[in-house]
């Protein structure tokens, strides 16, 4: 791959086949969602999950943003789906940057993804037995706005 290529093969593969793009909103039982946005570049990330608060059974994203951000969301979702909800608290930003060869000036975009994951984690926690919220309605949406 020449250094002139703006996207490496992993980014291209995820972008061409965004298997986890979608959402699990209205109609899905045990679904939670979190959305973050950034106004300058107009970025938006919506993460949604089916979870019992401990395990993320299914994890989906929707992204308005560049190919690196889409690929990062895809990579994250495919890694965390089926695993413990705590994974959402530990987004491996540096590792994703390296894997996807994200230009440093886009670091903020991956931090936004981290924010979304953290927000989704909070929403998941509310699904735990001790937390009664979110049991009645299909989806809980956490919203966050960033400026970075």
């Amino acid at each position, binding site marked *: 791959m020449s250094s002139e290529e703006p996207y490496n093969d992993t980014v291209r593969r995820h*972008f061409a086949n965004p298997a986890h*793009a979608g959402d699990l909103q209205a109609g899905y039982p045990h679904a939670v969602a979190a959305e973050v946005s950034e106004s300058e570049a107009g970025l938006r990330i919506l993460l949604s999950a089916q979870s019992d608060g401990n395990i993320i059974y299914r994890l989906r994203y929707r992204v*308005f943003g560049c190919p690196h951000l889409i690929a990062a969301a895809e990579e994250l979702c495919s890694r965390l789906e089926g695993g413990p909800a705590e994974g959402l608290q530990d987004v491996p930003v540096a590792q994703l940057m390296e894997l996807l060869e994200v230009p440093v000036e886009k670091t903020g975009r991956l931090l936004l993804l981290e924010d979304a994951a953290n927000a989704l984690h909070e929403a998941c926690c509310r699904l735990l037995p001790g937390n009664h919220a979110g049991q009645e309605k299909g989806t809980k949406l956490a919203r966050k706005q960033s400026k970075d």
Partner: protein
Amino acid sequence: MTPGKEIIYLDDAATTPVDPVVAEAMQRCLSGGGAFANPSSIHIAGRASRAQVERSRAQVAKLLNTAPGNLVFTSGATESNNLAIAGAARFRSHRGRHLVSMPTEHKAVTDCFAALEREGFEVTWLEPDQRGLLPIGDLEAAIRPDTQLVSIMHVNNETGVIQDIHQIGDACRRHGVLFHCDAAQSAGKLPIDLSALPVDLMSLTGHKFYGPQGIGALYLADRPECRIRPLFHGGGQERRLRPGTLPVHQVVGLGAAAAIAVERQPDDLAHAERLNARLWKGIRDVRGITRNGDPGHCFPGILNVSIDGIDGESLMLALEPLCVATGSACNSQSGEPSYVLRALKLTDRLAQSAIRFSFGRFTHESDIDAAIGVYTGAVDRLRSIMPKATA
């Protein structure tokens, strides 16, 4: 290039393919027995090269309906623009240091003016109206007693908007101010008659009309006012305005491209009109699409569109193997929303989604049809990835 993907090239405004006839003329120079000698050499081979150079100069002159002696060969429109603007400004600086241009010019113009500002010149930047056109009253109001030069392009490289250079030139002549016109996007593609146009300096470049990259020309009207300072020095080539060994194959390529353009320009233009209509018909129903630049005042070889709520960078990747531009090819690595589009009052959000389709002599209708399919498909695909409310 990604193997297995056949590209669809709709980026003629960045650079056109070289006409096979041009390539052949160049190849003749480069191969054994061709005109390869230094045209400054006085021996037989040098004179043969010189004859080729002067033949090419006459071909370019014919394209613009001017005398060969009014043309100086350069390495392209970036250099021509700088030579004209900095050259005239510096030559005339003792008379006044005020210059006029527009922020929607190519970077080779705006950056040159910016450098002149650092040298102590003052530049008035005139905004276009919503159609992209220069309000002539604004120009007249901007010209002062110390104004020396106005530089306005013919066809905008991002939107295709055509300025009325006849009217602008008339205003400049009335006020005794030099008028430079960057015709990089129009030379060889729109009719230009310098015997009738009140233009003092005009830039063109071969690679925008099926000639080679790295060769261009500057026209200097045969008027005492049109004297300029060179950008660099050495040798006596090109009336001392542009020294350096003349690259014979490049000059021959430019001349051949001009000769072909003389013949084909009307047909090429009609072809571009048909392609433009076909393309717009194929994409105009995409939800949220808008056309940038007033179609009534645009060169038909360029179609610039935006879509509300689509990320431009992702769109570019989704469009592969379709080769088009986001904003100007010359800005395309900066990633910033196009200044030209913002000057047309587009929001940043719309501007960043802009795609410039550009096409010409070698574009087939099947390329347009393929592009329509790829573009509409890519928009659909991106919308399926985006949060619903955005799109």
